[in-house]
C-alpha cells in the first residue's frame, strides 16, 4: 500500500473518534455547576441587556443538545466562538498553541538526542555499574512530581537570579532586536524544558535499553557475530536499526504525555501555553474556550500518533496499516 493511501485511511479513521471526543467533552463541561456569566453578573456596570445578549451569544438559553449542534456547526465552519471575556477563541488558541508546540518540540528534541544514546550505553553495559547508575537515575526522574520539580527550580531561579521566574518574554521584549528576542525566549524556556526533559527522559532511556537488549539476544545478531562481523558493526548496523523502530511509535505516546505533563509545568512557570489556557478556562467555566482547547489538544495528540505511524512506515516498510 502506498504511503498516501495509508495516510488518508488513517485520517478518515480518526474523524469518528474526534466526533466522539467532542460529544463526551461537551456534555461533561455542561454538567459543571459553575455559571459561565458569574463574573459578568458580579460586575455592577454590566446591564441586564448585556447579560441577555451574552446568554444569546453563547447559546446558553437553549437546551444542551441544541447547544451542542450549534457548537458543532460553527466548529466545522472553523468558527470557534467567543470567550466569556469577549475575545475570539481562535485568536487565543493561535497565541497559545505555538508556545506549547515550541516547548514540546524542544523537549522531544533533547530527550531523543540524550535518551537514545543513554539507552544504548546502558544496554551495552548491562548489569555493570554504569547501567545501575543510569537505572537509579531514571527511577528518580520518573518519581519527581513535575510541579514539585518546577517549584524547586523556581527557588533556584529566585535565589541565583540566573533565570527568569516565569512567562515566555521579558517586560522589555518589544524593544529587543531580532537576536535579542530569540535569546530572551530561549532564556525563558530553559527551566520548563528542564522539568519536562527530566520527566520524559527516564521512560525513553529505559525503553531504548530494553529494546536493544531484546534485539541483542535475537538470532540474526548471533548470526552476524558468528559471521565474524566486528562488534561495532553488529551493534550499530544490525541491532540498532531494529531496536529504534518501536521507539518511533513511542514518539506519539510521548507527545500525549507531554501535553498532559506540560499543563502543570506551564501553570507553575506561568508559561502561556495550551495547558494553562485550558486550566484557566475550566476554572471560569468558559465553555467555548474549554471545548476549543480540548479539541485542539485531542487533535494534536491524534496528529502526533499519526505522524509517529507514518514515520514508522517510512523507516520500517514491513509495517501493515492496521
Amino acid at each position, binding site marked *: 500500500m502506498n504511503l498516501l493511501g495509508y495516510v488518508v485511511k488513517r485520517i478518515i479513521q480518526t474523524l469518528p473518534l474526534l466526533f466522539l471526543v467532542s460529544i463526551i467533552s461537551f456534555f461533561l463541561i455542561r454538567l459543571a455547576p*459553575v455559571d459561565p456569566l458569574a463574573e459578568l453578573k458580579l460586575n455592577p456596570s454590566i446591564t441586564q441587556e448585556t447579560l441577555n445578549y451574552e446568554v444569546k451569544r453563547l447559546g446558553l438559553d437553549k437546551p444542551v443538545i441544541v447547544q451542542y449542534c450549534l457548537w458543532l456547526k460553527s466548529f466545522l465552519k472553523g468558527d470557534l466562538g467567543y470567550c466569556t471575556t469577549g475575545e475570539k477563541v481562535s485568536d487565543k488558541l493561535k497565541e497559545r498553541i505555538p508556545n506549547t508546540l515550541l516547548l514540546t518540540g524542544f523537549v522531544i528534541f533533547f530527550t531523543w538526542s540524550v535518551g537514545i544514546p543513554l539507552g544504548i550505553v546502558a544496554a551495552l553495559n548491562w548489569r555493570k555499574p554504569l547501567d545501575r547508575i543510569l537505572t537509579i537515575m531514571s527511577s528518580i526522574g520518573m518519581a519527581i512530581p*513535575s510541579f514539585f520539580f518546577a517549584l524547586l527550580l523556581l527557588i533556584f531561579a529566585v535565589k541565583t537570579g540566573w533565570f527568569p521566574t516565569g512567562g515566555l518574554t521579558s517586560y522589555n521584549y518589544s524593544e529587543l532586536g531580532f537576536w535579542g528576542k530569540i535569546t530572551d525566549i530561549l532564556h525563558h524556556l530553559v527551566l520548563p524544558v528542564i522539568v519536562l526533559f527530566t520527566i520524559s527522559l527516564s521512560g525513553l532511556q529505559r525503553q531504548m535499553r530494553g529494546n536493544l537488549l531484546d534485539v541483542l539476544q535475537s538470532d540474526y545478531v548471533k548470526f552476524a557475530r558468528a559471521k565474524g562481523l566486528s562488534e561495532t558493526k553488529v551493534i550499530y548496523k544490525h541491532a540498532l536499526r531494529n531496536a529504534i523502530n518501536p521507539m518511533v511509535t513511542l514518539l506519539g505516546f510521548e507527545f500525549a504525555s507531554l*501535553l498532559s505533563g506540560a499543563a502543570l509545568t506551564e501553570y507553575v512557570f506561568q508559561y502561556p501555553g495550551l495547558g494553562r489556557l485550558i486550566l484557566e478556562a475550566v476554572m471560569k467555566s468558559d465553555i467555548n474556550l*474549554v471545548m476549543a482547547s480540548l479539541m485542539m*489538544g485531542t487533535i494534536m495528540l491524534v496528529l502526533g500518533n499519526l505522524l509517529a505511524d507514518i514515520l514508522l512506515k517510512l523507516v520500517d516498510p514491513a509495517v501493515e496499516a492496521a
Partner: protein
Amino acid sequence: MAKLPDFNTFNKDSILKSVLKDEFARRALYILIILYMAVFLASFISPYPKDYSNREKAYCPPSKIYIINEEGKLSFPYTYNYKRFFDKETFSTKYIEDRTHKYKVKYFSKGEKYKLFGFIPLNRHFYDVENGGELYLLGTDINGRDNFSRLLYGGQISLTIGFLALLVSFPLGMIYGGISGYFGGKTDFIMMRIAEAIMSIPSFYLLIILASILPANMTSVQRFSLIVLILALIGWAGFSRVVRGMVLSIKKREFVIASEAIGASNMRTIIHHILPQTLSYVIVAMTLSVPSYILSESGLSFLGLGIQQPDASWGNMLKEAQEFINIISRPWLLTPGFLIFVAVLAFNVIGDTIRDAVDPNSKEK
C-alpha cells in the same frame, strides 16, 4: 503494542520473594511500610489534632529541640517557644526563640482525645510538650497549623486514594474489556471506539474538567469519594483494551466452550470463567499503576481542584509553596513534595522488580 508476557506461568509467591531478594526493592518496601504505619497511626504520633490551628503563630519556623543545656550538660530534651516580632527595618514579621522559659518534651503523655483507626479511644500521644509550650517539628503553615501533624493526616489521603481508585477502575476496565472481547463484532467495535475516544483526550485535561464539575458545597467525605471516582474514570480505558485482547484469546479455550455448553449465561461465563484468567496480569498492572494515581491526586490538589482545605493532602499542602516568598524563606513548606517523591520512587522500584519477576524476558531493570 508491546507484547504481553504469559501471565499464567508465574507463581505469586515468587513475586514477594524476588522483591525481598532485590536490595533496592527490599529497602523500598521498608520505606513504604514505615510511611503507611506513620500515616495510619497519625493521630497517635502527631501531637496536635486535625483541626488544631494557632492563629498567633502563622509560618512559625521548626522548633529546635535541645538535649544539651546552657551549662553544656546532657539534659532531658527541651524546646523554646518562638516569639513573633515586627522587624521595622525590613517591614516583615520574624520569629526569635524566647529563651526565658524552657519546655520539656514529654513522651507517651496524655493529651487531646482521639480514636485510633477510627474506633480505639485513646488520649496518649507519642510526643508532646509541657503546658504552654509549642512544638512544631516542621514549622507551621499560614493558619498556624502544625506542618508535621498535617503531613501525617494528609498522607492518609494521598497514600490511600490511589488504592481506592484502583478498586474502581480495575473492575470497571475488566468488565468493560471482558464484555467487549467476549461478544466481539459490533459491540466490540463500538465499545472499543468509545474507549479510544477517552484515551485520545489528553488525560490531565480530562482530569481537570471532571474535577471542575464537582459542586463546591460538599462534605469532605463526599469530595474524597468523588475524586477517587474521577481518578478511576481516567485510568480504566487503556486497561480495558489490554483485557479485551486477552479475552479474545481466552474465549476460544475449552473451558469457556464448556461453560457455554452447559447453558451458563453470558455474564456468568465472562465473570466466573474468563476474567479470573486475566487476574494475574490485573494484579501486576494494578501494582504498577499506584504511583500514577498518587501523582494525579497531588497534581489535582496542587491546582486546588482536588482535596480542599481544611482537609490536608500532600498536593494541597504544596499549594502554599507556590508563592515566591514562601519557597525562599519558608522551605519547610516543601516537605510534602519530598514525601510524594519518596513514596512514588518506592512504588516504582518495587514495580520494576515485580515486572522482572513476572516476565523473565524483560530487561527493563
